[in-house]
């Protein structure tokens, strides 16, 4: 029987070794991703969201150390694989659309050829003609004219290049796609079209997706579930509606009140005091406690466990908000 979760991350902890000491980039993070589901990871710079993505793909820099945890992709422990086996997982198991990936296309090769190369690397025995046919099918999916496949990257606009990268990420039919700030460098109209296409592809191909972004409005629109990260830890994980309407963690609540919107009446925005901590020496106990309005004594000394407080609603907080207080 197939597990309902395609991806399961358990107690992942990762440090970066630096000259100044260890940076606690990801600390005891757990989450599941169900088949066909989209999970949004949201948080500010340095909160560890991109480090998680790199850990899942085993694309970490040399100074990164995976200290503990397991990552199961379809039951297979990704962290236990050797480099050769990992290479099979990348692209076909998990593929990733990087931030500003549109600059990742090689300027001297035709766009279509770059996707064909990726395809032929991962599917040995696939002929050139078959690979071309596959690209011709992929282009319309991401809103590109198949006639453009023999053009060079400089002939594409930023939005078109980002679409080509998404086509490349889709080409090997991965089980999970990670999109790290896929539209951050793009203008709002182009962003809207690309997010729309990604959602449509996800539904059509029943794909599982992880969106990573700092933009709360984008995450609200693309995610079934949302994980809110703060300073290397998962603060809260719940359905998108629950995160927005019934946040339990004071940080989630504060984020929601700090995000301007053009929708509805103009709400008063509330600034958060202080700044995110330096992860070379993170605060003791709950990492949010120096900035939190609900800190109690326990918060300063003890790390709150990441626990389920309602159906599918996880939070790490000693003094969470009451339900309905959001």
């Amino acid at each position, binding site marked *: 029987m197939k597990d309902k979760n395609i991806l399961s991350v358990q107690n992942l902890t990762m440090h970066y070794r630096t000259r100044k000491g260890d940076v606690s980039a990801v600390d005891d993070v757990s989450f599941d991703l169900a088949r066909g589901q989209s999970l949004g990871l949201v948080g500010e710079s340095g909160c560890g969201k991109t480090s998680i993505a790199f850990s899942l793909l085993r694309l970490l820099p040399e100074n990164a150390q995976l200290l503990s945890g397991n990552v199961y992709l379809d039951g297979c422990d990704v962290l236990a694989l050797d480099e050769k086996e990992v290479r099979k997982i990348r692209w076909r198991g998990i593929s990733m659309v990087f931030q500003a990936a549109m600059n990742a296309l090689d300027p001297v090769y035709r766009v279509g050829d770059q996707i064909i190369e990726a395809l032929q690397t991962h599917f040995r025995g696939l002929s050139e003609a078959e690979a071309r046919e596959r690209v011709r099918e992929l282009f319309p999916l991401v809103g590109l004219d198949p006639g453009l496949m023999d053009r060079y990257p400089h002939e594409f*606009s930023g939005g078109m290049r980002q679409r080509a990268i998404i086509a490349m990420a889709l080409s090997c039919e991965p089980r999970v796609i990670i999109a790290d700030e896929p539209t951050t460098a793009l203008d709002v*109209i182009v*962003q*809207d*079209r690309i997010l729309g296409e990604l959602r449509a592809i996800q539904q059509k191909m029943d794909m599982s997706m992880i969106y990573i972004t700092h933009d709360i*409005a984008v995450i609200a629109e693309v995610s079934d579930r949302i994980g809110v990260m703060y300073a290397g830890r998962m603060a809260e994980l719940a359905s998108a509606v629950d995160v927005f309407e019934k946040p339990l963690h004071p940080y989630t609540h504060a984020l929601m009140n700090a995000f*301007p919107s053009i929708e509805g009446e103009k709400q008063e925005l509330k600034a958060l005091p202080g700044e995110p901590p330096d992860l070379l020496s993170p605060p003791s106990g709950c990492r949010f406690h120096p900035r939190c309005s609900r800190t109690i004594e326990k918060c300063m000394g003890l790390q709150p466990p990441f626990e389920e407080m309602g159906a599918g609603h996880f939070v790490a907080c000693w003094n969470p908000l009451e339900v309905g207080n959001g």
Partner: protein
Amino acid sequence: MGENSTLVNVVGLEKRFPVSAGVFGRLRGHIHAVDEISFEIPSGRSLGLVGESGCGKTTTGKLLARLLDPTDGHIYLNDEELGKIDLAEIRGQELKTFRRRVQIIFQDPYESLNPRRTIYDTVEEPLRVQGIGGMAEREARVVKLLELVGLTPASSFLFRFPHELSGGQRQRVAIARALVVNPVFVIADEPTSMLDVSIRIGVMQLMTELAERLNVSYLYITHDLAVARYMCQEIAVMYLGKIVEQGETEEMIRHPQHPYTRALFSAVPVPNPRRNRIAIEIKGGVPTPIDPPQRCRFYDRCLSGDDFCLNNDHPPLDDKGAGHRVACYKV
């Protein structure tokens, strides 16, 4: 000066950049970055200039700060101290005096501060250049400004370097530096777009509070409509070098009228997972503004354009009631 007096009055402002091609640099045409725009900013109010990349909003900001020379047009500043002057005309010493009244804040606080200067030197420099006050007076003024922008106690920041500060703190330094000479008008080009969510609101609130307290007007340049909504009393939307719509902020957000503004506003994601936002479609992507045809700049992407739009010049920015101005024949 009264509430409703005009502080800045821009008339027919234009900036063209030559485009050359080939090994001999033959002139291929001109990019019409800012194409005969006119607008006013009343004293004590702020105008948000919004649009997509390449629409000319940053060039407009640089023209108003006189970091670029306009090709044509006028920028009138009605200032208590300097009287009515045309910023497009001033040169030399006049330009230096003008910098006391008009300042600019840039997007990237990591790039805009000199890494080898202390915070004190950075904030004091405009005073020194302008020859304002003696040493003691200048120091007192720098301390006061640092405290105003929330870098307290100022003494703990004075002799630090930019790399010792966070992004939010650096942007506060940039704001202090801009305001230290008592300007009446500040051009702010995406001042919060590099900052994290939890830091950004603090800087936005600080800028709003200082504007009221010091009676400063902003030209707030941003691609983020939601930010413009919170920072400005009025919004102007630019497209291909033209202002296509301008009006009071809430009126614009609720009833955008130009087909481009409607599409742009409808594409903004909203932080509400229950809301099923429907985007208004437009055709294609933004063309390059190299010698554009005389007709409406938006014609090629517009779904409501007709032969009249095709055969006439770009429509004038007409008042369609209550100061809501729209450049469209179909509205």
